[in-house]
């Protein structure tokens, strides 16, 4: 396989383009995804290649475009919906939660909704309370939806292919601050199975399960801690539904310590679920220290850059948490 460095953003575009060249049923719809190239530039150049029939610029009508994606999926297409900011899922919520997620089950196993809703999440851009949220726990709570949170360009490409190939509605969260990060990515198409975690760094003293941008912060913390002789293992679940419980449990059995880190508000966040999975498993007997959770403060994301950073876990917070967790090692 020939690989080269591309950005996370380019990996999203490449995965979509490869699928669209292969399969005429795959198309993309969303606001300003035509000549504008999407709010973050992800679809730039795609309307020129695929034309306005398959790169469909929509009005500002999130409920209708989500529903149109679902209806077209139910009848044979494989739509990719770009939702401009993940916060606007609130407007598409009825369609995603009451329709997309439930159709097959309600119909007694008939019909399927092979669609992907791609959307940028997270804070750090100064866009404030209504454009910075991390609401993945909401979606993970709904049976019938799958939820993906890639942290690297390599993972983006393989997971997006898996999401497009999947016969179920998949919510694909892209992190705004990761769009410009680069990684070695093969030119060919490849697939990363949904539900397979990735150990981003091996270690023996403590397991950090981190999602999306927090994977990078955890890795940074791990490099710092290595200097103090603390060996950190960083597990990236990559998809929270389905969740690779086995990899997480095995890692905790090995290290005996667990810290979970995500950007979303800690209260009711997905970290609580991960912690419960471990507490209910055989890894419980291996724990040598209380489990720790790091998540966003229970506040809307503020505008001021200093406050904005303080609202979510940062590298020093992770380092601090690890030190506390391993102190009686």
């Amino acid at each position: 396989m020939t690989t080269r460095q591309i950005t996370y953003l380019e990996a999203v575009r490449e995965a979509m383009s490869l699928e669209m060249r292969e399969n005429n049923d795959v198309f993309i719809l969303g606001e300003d995804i035509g000549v504008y190239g999407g709010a973050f530039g992800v679809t730039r150049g795609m309307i020129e290649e695929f034309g306005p029939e398959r790169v469909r610029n929509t009005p500002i009508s999130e409920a209708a475009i989500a529903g149109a994606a679902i209806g077209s999926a139910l009848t044979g297409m494989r739509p990719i919906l770009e939702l401009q900011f993940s916060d606007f899922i609130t407007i598409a919520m009825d369609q995603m939660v009451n329709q997309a997620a439930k159709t097959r089950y309600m119909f007694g196993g008939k019909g399927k909704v092979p669609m992907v809703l791609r959307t940028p999440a997270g804070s750090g851009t100064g866009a404030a309370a209504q454009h910075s949220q991390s609401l993945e726990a909401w979606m993970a709570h709904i049976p019938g939806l799958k939820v993906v949170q890639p942290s690297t360009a390599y993972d983006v490409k393989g997971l997006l292919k898996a999401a497009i190939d999947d016969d179920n509605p998949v919510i694909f969260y892209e992190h705004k601050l990761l769009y410009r990060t680069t990684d070695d990515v093969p030119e060919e198409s490849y697939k990363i199975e949904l539900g397979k975690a990735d150990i981003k760094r091996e270690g023996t003293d403590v397991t950090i399960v981190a999602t999306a941008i927090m994977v990078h912060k955890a890795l940074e913390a791990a490099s710092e801690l290595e200097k103090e002789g603390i060996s950190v293992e960083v597990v990236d679940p990559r998809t929270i539904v389905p969740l690779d419980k086995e990899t997480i449990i095995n890692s905790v059995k090995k290290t005996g310590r667990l810290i979970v880190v995500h950007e979303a508000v800690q209260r009711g966040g997905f970290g609580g679920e991960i912690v419960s999975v471990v507490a209910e498993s055989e890894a419980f007997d291996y724990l040598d220290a209380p489990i720790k959770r790091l998540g966003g403060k229970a506040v809307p994301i503020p505008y001021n850059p200093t406050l904005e950073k303080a609202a979510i876990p940062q590298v020093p917070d992770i380092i601090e948490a690890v030190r506390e967790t391993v102190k009686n090692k």
Partner: protein
Amino acid sequence: MMVKTLKLPEMITEEKLKDLYKEMWLIRYFDEKVDQFFAKGMIHGTTHLCVGQEASAAGSIAVIGRKDKIVSTHRGHGHCISKEGDINKMMAELFGRETGYCKGKGGSMHIADVEKGNLGANGIVGGGLPLAVGAALTSKMKKEDYVVLCFFGDGASNEGSFHESVNLAAIWDLPVIFICENNQYGMSGPVKEMTRVENIADRASSYGIPGKVVDGLDMIEIMNSVHEAVEHARDGKGPTLIEMKTYRWKGHSKSDAKKYRTREEEKEWREKDGIKRFKETLIEASILTEETAKQLQDQAYEEIEEAVKFAENSPEPSLDSLLEDVYA
């Protein structure tokens, strides 16, 4: 003194017309300044500038009173300034300072001045329309006799919230005036491709209320039309949908290559500049001279410079404030 030569609502005095002329410059200079700061990376986040659209804000708000309310949008600096907003607090907010309208927590998209009847800008397209209906409901239920001007864009008129709100206000005869600032585009979506009606105001008939298309760069027409709708609302006859045809001179937000429109089109609209037109009208009516006009414009510039100083000299919010104001 009443203005004789111009047909205008009664409350629009000669003094008021001069104030309005200056106000339009305040709006323009404010947003020009913000544009420069963003270009230099001095402010973070994003912003939506209303340069070119000053008339729809200034003219509409000119004909309502202090107790009346407005609901604004993401492109809301003009609305705030016209509703007697404090430009120091606005600029400080953009700088993320403690003295800002939102104590540095909101930024450009969330500036609000509830005491003055500005129920806020909004980061959610179409997010303000239902709120305006609710504010008008209070006015009716508590017999407070205020009206609500609800601003929104052409793009917002394709959200479900637009249709649901106009219908609700219509069946309850609520005192709200829906003002669509049709600047021809959403972020990039041309209004011509995003709806099949010629005018967004045509949609009024679907809800059984009056609809009106107005030249959004003509201050006189704006003031008269909004005044008429306000009277209608105050008489208990319910909402009106007014569409103001206008144009944003700048890109949609911070980064916009403007590939979806031509430079020629931009030039055509710029030539129809609402401020220039208002000045010509006022000079013709002998209310302004070139000289007095220039003075007002310069005063506006000075005030914006002062606001910048105020913002720059204001303190950052304390870290403790992060957890404050989540609940009342």
